[in-house]
Structures are given as C-alpha cells and as structure tokens.
C-alpha cells in the first residue's frame, strides 16, 4: 500500500507524524519504507535520527534517483539510526523493518522531465513488492513532487496498487481552509489528478485528513490553566469542528488527531512507549493517537467512507 503524506503548509507536523505512524506500523509487524519526497527540505533522516541523512544524504538519495538516475539508498533504521527506539525494533517480537529512502542534501525542487513519472512508478512497484507499506512524505503545497506522484499513480502499471492520501493540517481556521484548498481548490489535488487521468471522485475518496498538534481538552493540560480558558477552547473547538464538517473534512474523513505534545514541540523524533511509561516525558495520548492513525491505514470500513 502507498500512503502519500501531504500538507498545504510547511511545519504542520506532517513529517513527525508520518515517521511516528510508520514506526507504529513496523511495530505492528509490517515491513515499512519511508520515502522522503520533500526534495527541498528532507527532514525524515533527522526525525529517525540517522546521522548520515541528517539533512539528506550526500549522494544517491531520492533526488538523485530522479535527476541523475542513480539507484536510491535504503537505510534500515535499525542499523543506521542513533535512536535506541529504532535500534531496538528488530528485538521486538513480531515487528517489521523500517527502512528510510532519504532525500539528498542540497537537493532542491526540480521540474519534471518526461521520463520521471515512469521512473517513479517503477520505484513504487519495486518497493510495493518488497514492503507492506510505503509512506511517501511529499513537500508542502502543490509541489512538483505532488505532480510527479499524481502522474505516476495514474499510469496503468500502478492501477492495481492501493494508493491513499493523508492531508496533514493544524487545527486552526486558516489551516483548515488551506488544507481544503489543497484538495478541492482550482489548482488542488483533485483537479490536478483529473488532468492526469484520475477519476476525481475516486481520488477524493482516497483522501483523508490528519489534524496535528491539537490541544487536547480532555487530558489535564498544563497549558490550560484557567476555567475560562478551557471554556473558550471548548467553544472554539466546536466551531472548528463545524467548519471542518462543512468542508467535508469532518470525522467521516478524519484519519487521526494528534494531540499537542510538548516533547514533540521541541524535538522532532520518534516517540516510543518507554518515553511514556518509563521517563514519562511524552504523553500516553500522543502515542495512542499515532497507534490509532497507523491502524486506520488499513481499516477498510473507514476507507469505504460514508
């Protein structure tokens, strides 16, 4: 299965959430590949704490795969990461591999040349055979990366693959509108997909949303100290929900809602159950939300939709 992770704006939490989601799937026993298609600013290496891919690799990253026709590296995080969490993954019974396909340092965006979509499709096909799940972290907005994968997935050789889209956005009025524009706008995903031969209705049905860094009103939040503050947040949250519902981004299409977590705010990383239970530096609710999001990826009733 291919999961395309996208967002209208940068800094939404797409990569942090995507990486944690990928980690959870691996924990659940799947072989997972994480493809850093954020050619301008690859960050997955940093989140997985792979020093040689901190800001992308020096050579033969995904950028070079397209622009220089080199093969792309596959870094098994169990071997290349400095994070104990990831190094320990193979020792957990039943867990699968988590492999990073990094971007290149100083890659930058590029325009699509004629052979790239086929090459992209070829990559996806090959990885789909090797992995249960491929998470493709796309650069923000309507980028070349987005065009490239839309073009690739429209090709007949990928017709049999399951491709799904996750649109990440923060929980504010502006971010909701922006995410809506990214999908439904004149220059949005659906229109762009249609031009490349996708059925817009089917494409739309394969899009779901992830709300990131949402202040969780249920757990006792240190940041909400006064009752009036809580009352305001609750009322405003209600308004945002109504807005999202109206824009067809409501619960029926909500793949996950990740609580704001102070640890993630300061440190882009994969968090693990020991951060919650042992050191108690991350919130249980955050880990649970990643877990739920990971489970949703293959919940067929959910993807069937209403």
């Amino acid at each position, binding site marked *: 299965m291919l999961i395309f992770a996208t967002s209208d704006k940068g800094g939404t939490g797409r990569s942090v959430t995507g990486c944690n989601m990928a980690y959870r799937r691996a924990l659940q026993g799947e072989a997972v590949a994480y493809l850093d298609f954020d050619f301008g600013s690859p960050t997955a290496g940093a989140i997985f704490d792979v020093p040689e891919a901190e800001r992308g690799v020096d050579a033969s990253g995904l950028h070079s795969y397209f622009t220089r026709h080199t093969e792309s590296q596959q870094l098994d995080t169990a071997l290349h990461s400095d994070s104990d969490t990831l190094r320990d993954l193979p020792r957990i019974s039943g867990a699968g591999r988590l492999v990073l396909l990094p971007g290149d340092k100083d890659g930058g965006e590029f325009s699509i040349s004629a052979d790239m979509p086929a090459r992209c499709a070829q990559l996806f096909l090959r990885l789909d055979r090797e992995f249960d799940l491929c998470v493709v972290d796309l650069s923000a907005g309507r980028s070349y990366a987005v065009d490239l994968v839309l073009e690739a997935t429209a090709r007949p050789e990928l017709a049999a693959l399951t491709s799904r889209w996750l649109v990440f956005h923060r929980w504010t009025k502006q971010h909701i509108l922006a995410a809506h524009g990214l999908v439904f706008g004149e220059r949005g995903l659906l229109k762009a997909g249609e031009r490349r031969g996708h059925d817009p209705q089917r494409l739309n049905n394969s899009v779901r949303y992830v709300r990131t860094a949402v202040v969780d009103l*249920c757990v006792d939040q240190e940041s909400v100290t006064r009752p009036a503050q809580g009352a305001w947040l609750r009322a405003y949250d209600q308004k945002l929900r109504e807005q999202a519902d109206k824009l067809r981004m409501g619960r029926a299409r909500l793949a996950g809602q990740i609580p704001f977590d102070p640890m993630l705010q300061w440190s882009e990383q994969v968090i693990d159950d020991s951060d919650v239970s042992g050191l108690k530096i991350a919130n249980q609710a955050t880990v649970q939300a990643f877990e739920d999001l990971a489970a949703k990826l293959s919940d067929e009733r959910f993807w069937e939709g209403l």
Partner: protein
Amino acid sequence: MRTNPRQHILDTWRAFARATFGSGEWAWGGRYPSNSISDAEQILILLYPATEVAGFRLDRPDSIEDDVLAVLRPMGSGLDIPMRMLEAMEQYLARYTDDDGGPTFTGGSYLLAENPDEEVKQEQYAYDITESYSISVTLCLSAKGFLREFQRTVERRELQNRIEAVILAMDARLTAAMVGLLRSFVVNVLDPDSPAEAVLLRTVSQGRVVGRTLTQDLRGRLQPVRDKLPELTFGLPPENEQMLRDYPERFFECGWAWGVAQDATDIDLAAAEGVKQPHGIAESRPLLHFTVNALDGLADLFSTRTSRQGLLTSEQQSLREALNLRWGLALQYWSTIATFGSGRWAIEDVPWEATTGQSSPYFTELVLAIVAMAQQGGTLSGTIGRSVAVLEELGQRGLVSRRAAEDDRGVLLHDPGVLMRLGGSELEGPALAWSYNGFAAALAKTALRVANVSGSRRNRARLIEVADASVEHLLARRQQSDGLWDHPANIYPRLAPAPATPAWDMTERSVEVFVAAAALVSAPPVADQGQVDQANNKIAEARHILDQERLTTPTAGGSQEQKLLREAEQSLNRADSLAGERPATAAALADKVLRDLDELAFARHAASRSA
C-alpha cells in the same frame, strides 16, 4: 436541581451500549421478549436524547461529542455510530412489517392474561396496541429527523439509497400510526344511572350534593367539548353523534382506548389510502393510561421541531389536523373534570377513580399529566399551585419521597405495577390486561413539565424537589452491576429480586425523565421584575460613577486606573445584556464594578486626608 441530566444520560448510554452491543451486533429484547413497543423503546433510549438534548446528537459523525463517543465505544467509532443507528432502524422496520408490507403495532410480550392461570392466545398477541401507535409516532419523527441530517454527510450513492428507503418506510409507518390513533380515539356516552355515570358524578362533586345544580353546571362546562364533537367526522360510529344530539342530558367521556375501537369506522382521507384498517377489538371506552400515552406521542407530532424541520408530508398534514382536534378535546374534557367546581377539585382527591371503578394514585398522576399539558398550552395557569400540592402528595403516597412501612400497599405501584383490564379482549380468548410500573418516572415527568410552565419560583422549587426525589428513586432502581433498570427490590427489600436482564421499558422512561430535566435546565431561569429593576439600578449607578471617573482620570493609556475603567466598562456592557434574563448575574457584575470604582474614590479620599 440535584438531578444531573447530562451525567445520567451518559451513564445510561454507557450501560446501554454495553448491554446492547455486547456481541458487536445490536441485540434486541431484554427482560421481555422483543415486541414493537419494546424494540422502539430500545432505539429511543439513544435516539430520544439524541434528538431532544443539545450535546447528545448522533446524526453526524462530527456532532458527536468526545465524552459521548467514549461511553458509546462498544458501538464503534464516530463513523460507526450513525451507521449502527441506521441498521437498527432497518431491522426494526423489517421486524414490524407484515408479509404484505403493512406496518404492525402489536403488543406481544407486554400483553398479560388478567388471570395469570390463563394463556394469551396467539391471535391476541397480534392485536394492535395504542401504545405502539404512539411510540411509533415518536420513533418515526425522531428517525426521520436523524436520517435527514445524517444524509448530509453521506456521499456514497448506495448508502444514500438505503437511507432514502428507510425514510420512506418510516413515513409509511408514521401514517399508519396516525390512522391507528384516529381509530382508537373514542367518545363513550354514559348510560343514565349506570355505575360509570355514578363514578363520574361522585368524582366531580367532591362531597357536594349531586343535584340538579351540579349536573347542570357540569353540562354547561362540558358544552364547549360537546359542541365540537360533531366535527369529528371520521373514525367514530355515526350513532355516537346521534346519541349525543338526542340525549343532551347524558354525560360522556372521551380519549383513547387501548387499541382500535370495536365500533371504529374507516378513515377515508386520501392520506389513509393503502393503510390497512383492521376491525377493532377494544371496548369503546377511554382508558386514562392509553389516553396520556397517545397524548404524549401526539405532543411530538405537534412540536415546533416537527414543523420547523418539515417532518410531515403534505398528506400527513390532514391526519395531523384531525388528531389535533381530538388532542384538544381530550385536554379540555379531562382538565374540566379534574378542576371542576369552586371547592375541592377532583384532582385533589387522591386516588382518582376511573369510570371503570378502578382507582389508583397512578390515575391521579395521569389526569395531572393531562392538566399539565393544558397548562403548557397557556390555559389553566391558575391551577399550578394546586397541581404542585397533589404532586407532592403523590410522591408521599406513592412511596417515592417517603419510605415504605411494612406491608405498605403503595409498593404495588412499582412492582408489579398497576394492572389495567383491556375490555373487549375477552371476546377471542382470556381477558387481557396491561401493566404499568413506571409511577415514579411519570411523577418526575409531570413535575418537570409543570415546573417548565410555572412562573413562580417557589412552586418551581417544590416541583424540582418532587422531580429530584423521583430521579433519586429511579437511579436507585438500577442494577448495581450493569447500571440498567429495573430492580425495585433495591428500594423495597421485601420484594423478590428481579432477573438480571435489562427492562427497556423502565430504562426508556428514565431516559425520558432525564430529557425532561435537561429541557428544564436549558430553559432560562425564572426572572422576576423586582430583580430586573434592582440589577438595572445597580448598573445605572455604576455607569454614572464610571462616567465621573472618566471625567477626571488622565487619559494616558496603560495606567492601572485606565485599565480598571476599561474592564469596568466591559463588565457593565455584559451586565446590560444579561439584566433581562439573568438579573442576579447582572447585579453581581455591577456589584464588582461598584466596589472596584469605590477603591479609587476611597484612595483619593485617604490622600486628601493625609495631605
């Protein structure tokens, strides 16, 4: 109010979801095998609060609040819940539609043989029951409102079609239920010198001499009802009207029988076309229990929500009007009898004696419920004070707000409940009976209903006390382990313990009480003019002092004083907007401003003295 409706509904839903979705699929029935009434009750436990109380909506995945989602976990995610509701409705419709596609309204396991040694016959189980008509009205309307809203989130064609089919079937069922309610409405002309007439006269006379003055007086008071009876052009036998015309001295009673009346005629409105109109069985005599039950269902039909959401088809409108006429007559008839005369009223003489000769505090409660409906319509508001006293007495006598003495017969109201004979049923088998053990729930509902129309704070407080005591009673009747009803032995230890299975009838009644409590809580508090004036006076003084301060305080922004003045201004604006509805809050805001402003004046005064 000690009752906390939100919490009680959530608790009930949690227990309900666990019991009904224990196996993952909706499990029908509980203590009693499922029937058209019990299954409707089971759906309404969810659907009724979901339709009536803000904060409990289930019709859109996004409208479901987080705590609601948490208690309904066994039903699945926010996405699954409306789907589960849709499936339940589909199953309900399939279970209560006969082979020819006609809706059925049978009583099934709720029917009892009056003599417990006899066995109810199979064909008797198939009798349509007024309670099923009435609960169907509520169910179909709530379901339609729910589905219309759910539809707006649904994008899949196939699912849209499914919803559309359920809406159509609900409409057909609603129409059939309305026709049933028209055909079970009866006018019973009393034979002169019959026992029934004697009871009626005894009831209204309350110790006064039953002479010519009294009967003439009563006839006069009932004349407006009598005048309207000829307008009832269908459902009733023509002899009825003739009798009323030919014997102007005869008394009558009107209301709902337990099912379609023996002498009911067919409804030949266009709307009723295609609706099966079987021959009636029920004795043509109104029973209080079924009358109030029918009125309760009709209240949903006439509600503002029903018209606002346009839940009725244009054909159903004609049925609605016909029912509205009957509703008005029943209300007027019973409240006239209940409050007749200038001395003690019939309603104050607990227990009420029905013209069948049976008497029970439950009947008093029923008549009060009708009076309360009339009060809601704005008439009879002068009777509220006396209703309050009767409700308090019922709480005492019915052992809701008082402990039971040993061998207290009042316990029977709750277990096994009041047994009512279903006249006419004996023609095809053993005589049947209907039992009702929801005395406490009915008491709470009526108290809350009256509280909602009461303008007096004192009466309101007394009524809330009655309701609170009833709710406490209801909560105590839950099974400890699963949190569902009904275990009266928890309260009356001499009773035999009930089976562990949930009784959906009591559960649904309790939910109705919580919904009524929520309605009262969401209504604005009673504000009296004296308080409003007082608040306005305080605001005026505070404004005046604020203006004076503004005149003298240097305008350099950012100073502490300027900040205080800005806050004072905001507080007073807020107080202004609240003064009409929440005068005490407005006064409290003004008080704070007055104190704050006085600190400035007092400080200056101190400075002038020390200079």
